[in-house]
């Protein structure tokens, strides 16, 4: 058994729309309010987007009597190629995660690769230390 934990979720999607339109849909409050963090059962009741590096966003969805806030801070903003922000849903978890969007223009439309990195627990932050080998060794005991 190899010990290779990876807390990264990646999704790639092609759009017919231009790279600028797809990029801007993340930062234009009016547009973002119609799709970002929306669900069929919830209603977006608040959208605040301060689209600059160091700026924050809050998008609140109402589900019944619950207001669910989605918050974050923009870390990189390079229109229309790259957008990186921290992301948390404080109601469910205080963990701050990181979302990176990489946009690539195609002859028609564009391709977006979204990478969402979760918080690495202490034991994953220590990849250079000895525990990785120890764990592999221990896990290997199972296979024999």
């Amino acid at each position, binding site marked *: 058994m190899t010990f290779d934990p990876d807390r990264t979720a990646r999704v790639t999607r092609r759009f017919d729309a231009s790279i600028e339109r797809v990029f801007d849909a993340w930062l234009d409050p009016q547009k973002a309010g119609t799709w970002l963090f929306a669900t069929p059962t919830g209603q977006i009741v608040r959208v605040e987007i301060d689209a600059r590096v160091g700026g924050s966003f809050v998008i609140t969805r109402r589900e019944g009597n619950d207001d669910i806030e989605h918050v974050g801070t923009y870390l990189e903003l390079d229109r229309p190629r790259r957008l990186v922000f921290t992301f948390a849903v404080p109601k469910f978890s205080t963990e701050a995660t990181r979302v990176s969007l990489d946009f690539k223009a195609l002859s028609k439309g564009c391709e977006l690769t*979204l990478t969402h990195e979760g918080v690495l627990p202490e*034991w994953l932050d220590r990849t250079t230390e000895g525990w990785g080998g120890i764990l592999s060794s221990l896990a290997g005991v199972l296979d024999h």
Partner: protein
Amino acid sequence: MRRETRVTELAEPFAMSLPAVSKHIRVLERARLVRRRRVWREHLVSFNPAPLEEIGAWVEKTRAFWSAQLDALDDLLKAEDAAAARKPDRKRSPQPTRPSKRGASR
């Protein structure tokens, strides 16, 4: 049932002192990746894969979440295109006098 091994045996292939190995094992115990029990003087440890499985579940859940989000984004853009096609003189059509800045609303 997970197989157990002695800490001393586990430490053998590593160029580390037993206390150093023990320290790493404590990190793994806190992360619930390793269970340790003591039988007389012997410390027996076993591997618990559950936290790794939780990470796999998080990745799956997160991918499904963003896939749905990107579906919604694609729907919005397609709806905009359909609306623009119905009203060809609206802002989404190319403007002959200056480069299009459509969507740049900031």
